[in-house]
C-alpha cells in the first residue's frame, strides 16, 4: 500500500522529473508532498509547458535544471517564482519548444538516441542548446538542414488520473502525452481519485483510454489530487485560487507564507489521509 508520502519518497533528489501541462492532470497533492519531503536538485521537464506545479517547485528551491517550452499560470499571468529565478540566474535553464520535448520523449519511447524535427533552424533556441545538433539531411537527398534532438529519458514521470483499476492499469483518456511520458520514463508514479475493482483492459471501450500497469511503478489514492488545477469530468480549475497565488507569490515573503499555509501546514492533503482517502496499491511489475 502506497500513500502520497511514500510515493514522494520514490522521487530521489536529482531526478529528471517529467510533468504534464496544467490541462493534463498534474498531481498537485504529490507535488506538495515532494516539497514537504524537501526534494532537491531536480531536473524538471515540463511536457511541454509548466504552470503552478513548476512554479511551486522552483520557489521551494527544489529545481536545479529546468527544461521547458514555457512556464505560465495561464489566465492568471506570469509564473512569479519562475520569472524571478530565471532573472536572478538561479536556474540552469534549458529553453526548448513544445514539439522538441514531445519528440525527444518519443525517441526514448522507441529506444533510439535521437529523433529529427522540422523547423527550429534559425531560432536562438538552437544556438543555445549544445545537445541539439543541426545536420545536413543525412539521407543525402537534399532535404536541407534538420535538427536532431537527443532522447530525453525521465527518471520519473508523475501524473494524477481519475481512476486506476485493481490490475494497476490507469485511465488516461485522450491525454496521450501521459502515455509517451510513461513509456519514456524509468518509473511512473500515479495518484488517482479512486481505484475501481475491475480490469480496464477487459472492455474495448475503456481499453482505448488506458495506460497498462506494465508502465506504472506505483499508485496512491489522493482524492482531489489535482486541486487547485482541474481534472476532466471531476472538478474545475480554481481560477480564483490561482490568481490569489499569482499575487501572493510575487514576493519571496509572500511565497513563503503561501508554502507554510498551503503546503507545510498539515491541513489540506493531510485531511485526506485522516479520512482514509489516501490508501494505495503498488503494481506488481514496474520497471
Amino acid at each position, binding site marked *: 500500500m502506497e500513500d502520497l508520502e511514500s510515493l514522494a519518497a520514490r522521487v530521489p533528489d536529482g531526478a529528471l522529473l517529467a510533468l*504534464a*501541462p496544467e*490541462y*493534463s492532470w498534474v498531481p498537485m497533492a504529490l507535488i506538495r508532498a515532494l516539497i514537504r519531503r524537501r526534494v532537491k536538485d531536480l531536473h524538471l521537464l515540463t*511536457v*511541454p*509547458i509548466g504552470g503552478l506545479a513548476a512554479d511551486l517547485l522552483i520557489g521551494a528551491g527544489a529545481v536545479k535544471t529546468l527544461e*521547458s*517550452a*514555457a*512556464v*505560465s499560470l*495561464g*489566465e492568471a499571468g*506570469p*509564473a512569479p517564482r*519562475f*520569472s524571478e529565478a*530565471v*532573472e536572478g*540566474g538561479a536556474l540552469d*535553464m534549458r*529553453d*526548448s*519548444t*513544445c*514539439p*522538441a520535448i*514531445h*519528440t525527444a520523449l*518519443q525517441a526514448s519511447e522507441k529506444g533510439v538516441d535521437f529523433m529529427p*524535427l*522540422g*523547423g*527550429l*533552424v*534559425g*531560432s*536562438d*533556441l538552437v544556438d*543555445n542548446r549544445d545537445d541539439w545538433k543541426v545536420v545536413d539531411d543525412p539521407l543525402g537527398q537534399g*532535404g*536541407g*538542414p534538420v535538427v536532431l534532438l537527443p532522447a530525453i529519458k525521465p527518471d520519473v514521470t508523475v501524473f494524477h488520473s481519475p481512476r486506476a483499476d485493481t490490475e494497476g492499469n490507469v485511465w488516461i483518456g*485522450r*491525454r*496521450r*502525452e*501521459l*502515455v*509517451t511520458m510513461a513509456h519514456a520514463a524509468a518509473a511512473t508514479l500515479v495518484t488517482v481519485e479512486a481505484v475501481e475493482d475491475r480490469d480496464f483492459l477487459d472492455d474495448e471501450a475503456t481499453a482505448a483510454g488506458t495506460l497498462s500497469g506494465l508502465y506504472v511503478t506505483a499508485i496512491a489514492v489522493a482524492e482531489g489530487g489535482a486541486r487547485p488545477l482541474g481534472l476532466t469530468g471531476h472538478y474545475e480549475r480554481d481560477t480564483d485560487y490561482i490568481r490569489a497565488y499569482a499575487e501572493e507569490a510575487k514576493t519571496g515573503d509572500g511565497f513563503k507564507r503561501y508554502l507554510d499555509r498551503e503546503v507545510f501546514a498539515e491541513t489540506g492533503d493531510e485531511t485526506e489521509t485522516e479520512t482514509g482517502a489516501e490508501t494505495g496499491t503498488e503494481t506488481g511489475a514496474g520497471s
Partner: protein
Amino acid sequence: MSKAETASSKISPKTSPGEPATTPEEFIICVMARLLEGLGHVSVGALSPIPGCAALLAREVSGAGGRVSIIHGDANNPYTDGGREIFDCAGQGRIDAFFLGGAQIDGEANINLLGLGSYPKIDKRFPGSFGSAFMYFTVPKVILFAPEHSRRVLVERVDFISAPGTSPPGVRRPGGPKALVTGLCLMSFEAGKKRFRLQSVHPGHTLEEIRDNTGFDFDLPRGEGGGEGGAVPVTPEPEAEKLQMLRSTIAAEIAKTYPDFAARVFQPRA
C-alpha cells in the same frame, strides 16, 4: 499563445443606428476573420479567445467545409493523440493558418516570446517560446497578433529569436508570417524583401501615429499600378451582418472554451 487580449481602446468606430457600438475586440476579430475566409483548417492555440472568435467567424462566413480547432478546450478540439498532435498535424501540412503573438516582433518578423536581455542573462523573463519555433515554419499562413502597437513590442531587432521570420534558401519552410494585426493597423509581410507592408490603418488612427509607435521601418501600401507609395486605406468597419453573427452564434460557440471572455465582451448585448 498571444499576449494580453485587449486591443487599443482608441478604436471606437461608428455603428448603425440602434446597434451597440463596435468594441475594439469585435473590430480586431473582424479584421482577422477576413484573413481566414475560405481556409480549410484554422488552428488556434491556448489562451487565444480573439483569434478563436476570428476563426469561428471566418468559418461561419465561408459556409461548409472549413474546420476550426481550438486546443485545450473541450469544444472544437479534434485532438485525441496527446500534446504532440497539433504539431504533427502542422508538420503534415494539415493546418492552413495559425496565430502567434510576441513580446517583441521585429521588422524582419522575428518573434521573441522568451524575454528581454542578452540570453542567457535575462532581465525580464516571459513564459517561453512555446511551439513557435515549429509552427512558424510549418503553417502556411501565420498571422501575428500584437494588440499593443508600441515601440516596446514592435522593435527594430528582437532580443531573442524564439522563431525567425524568414529562412535562408535550402531550409524547408512551407510556412511563415503573412500578416500582422495590431490595435492600430493591418500589415502584410513579404518574405522575399524581409519587410512588412502597411495594408490599412484602423479608423481613428493615422500613418503618423503608426510610424511613431513602430520600432522598425516598413513599406507603404502599393499604389494603383502596383508600385510603391500608394494611399493608405482605412481598415473597413465590420459588416453589420458579421457583427450580428459574431454577437450571436460565435459568442455562444466561444463561450464553450472561454466563458469569461465571452461574458465580458459579448454578454451585455447577447
